[in-house]
């Protein structure tokens, strides 16, 4: 059994090998997941704000569905996107299957509901505080949503980070629509899965350690940026 220190040494060795292939894999992982989170937030946050602040028929049902979609199995999302993009699928002519674009599409679909559901939760309290004022001011739906998002922006970071966590960690969807093709669509998680299936458990764990370290760095950077922005705003 690989022990912790050897895995750790292996991980450090990997990082400082400056192996171009490893760096390309890390780069692709970050590019795909960050793009997906950006797109997921672009649609998910306003959707969450709308669920938090507007009353319309079917809001309760939509909330339940969006919440449930936090539990969309990556493999299922991957399959759906696969079938759409497959040569024989409706969007087959675009030739996107097994490209990073396909991976971004799948991950965007995966993280969007998560970001929307968590944004809703973050903004619902703020909305209840502002609700009477906003109604008294007769704001339009759009004014309400933008005001809530702006005033709740610091709290929304956690929703985005949860989306990032989901995207960077998942393997099911990118495996299916990306195909884990070496030099083309291989990312951290698919590499880890591959090394696991080869029985290279120590290497898989070392890669996992590298992935988690990157996640921690991304999180720490964004949290401290957030904190600084907040401090400046409330100086």
């Amino acid at each position, binding site marked *: 059994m690989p022990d912790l220190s050897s895995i750790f040494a292996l991980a450090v060795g990997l990082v400082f090998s400056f192996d171009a292939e490893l760096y390309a894999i890390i780069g692709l992982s970050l590019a795909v997941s960050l793009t997906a989170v950006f797109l997921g937030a672009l649609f998910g946050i306003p959707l969450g704000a709308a669920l938090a602040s507007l009353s319309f028929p079917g809001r309760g049902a939509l909330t339940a569905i969006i919440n449930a979609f936090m539990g969309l199995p990556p493999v299922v999302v991957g399959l759906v996107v696969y079938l759409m993009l497959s040569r024989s699928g409706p969007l087959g002519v675009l030739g996107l*299957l097994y490209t990073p674009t396909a991976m971004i599409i799948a991950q965007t679909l995966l993280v969007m509901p998560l970001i929307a559901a968590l944004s809703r939760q973050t903004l619902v309290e703020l909305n209840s505080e502002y609700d009477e004022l906003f109604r008294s001011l007769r704001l339009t739906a759009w004014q309400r949503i933008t005001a809530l998002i702006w005033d709740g922006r610091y709290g929304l970071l956690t929703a985005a980070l949860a989306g990032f966590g989901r995207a960077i960690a998942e393997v099911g969807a990118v495996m299916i629509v990306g195909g884990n093709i070496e*030099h083309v669509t291989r990312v951290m998680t698919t590499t880890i899965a591959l090394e696991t*299936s080869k029985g290279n458990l120590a290497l898989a764990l070392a890669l996992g350690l590298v992935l988690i370290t990157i996640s921690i760095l991304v999180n720490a950077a964004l949290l401290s940026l957030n904190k600084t922005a907040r401090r400046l705003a409330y100086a």
Partner: protein
Amino acid sequence: QPAWAADGGGFIILQSTTSTDNSGLLKAILPKFRDKSGIEVRVVAVGTGQAIKNSTNGDGDVLLVHAKASEEKFVAEGHGVARTDVMYNDFVIVGPDADPANLKGTADVIAALQKLAAAESLFASRGDNSGTHKAEMRLWKAAGIDVAKSSGAWYRATGSGMGATLNTSVGLGAYALTDRATWLSFKNKAGHKVLVEGNPRLFNQYGIILVNPEKHPGVKAKAGQAFIDWLTGADGQAAIAAFKVDGKQLFFPNAPKNN
């Protein structure tokens, strides 16, 4: 009291490859063994490498894979008691109906691979060090082609299991090497067909190994051995031969007769 009862718990864990499980073989034959012996066989179907690794850790009682060199190494290192041939089937090259590299009817698999490389037609490889992948690499080597140089271009190493690789090859319109059992039971064939088959080089041998109880005290050796004896014996061999998908036999028993 049967001999294996001393092991406690009426089940053993079989570490196997996905091809034996996905094809439905194990599901078809294991109940026969259970009815006879009372032993339940729990199947963990993973990649060959992972199956061997799991067994190296002692997390299985019996190992059933198809990568002879790795299996012999496993036994040589003392993790397994002995390796026995169980059955074989064969590999085939599948590809799109349009057949851009014009492989159809090429009897010589080496020539077929050379054609494929010359045409730079897409080829999806498992790229996961599995038994199938190792067989594929042997073939490329024999054909004198260094696929590593073309990786990412026409040669696509998917780094995943047989089923996932077949899904990818169908999605890409690429050729792929697969064991026949997995192919016959695969449901997402779309327009793909078997194009190259029937060459001796495409022979695919499965072996079975009892994990060494001296190395791993938790191993249920008696029950495990009972399963190996059954599978390599007359009843097990007959059950393998009787397993058919769409009327076709997928595995051919070839355990040494003296068992």
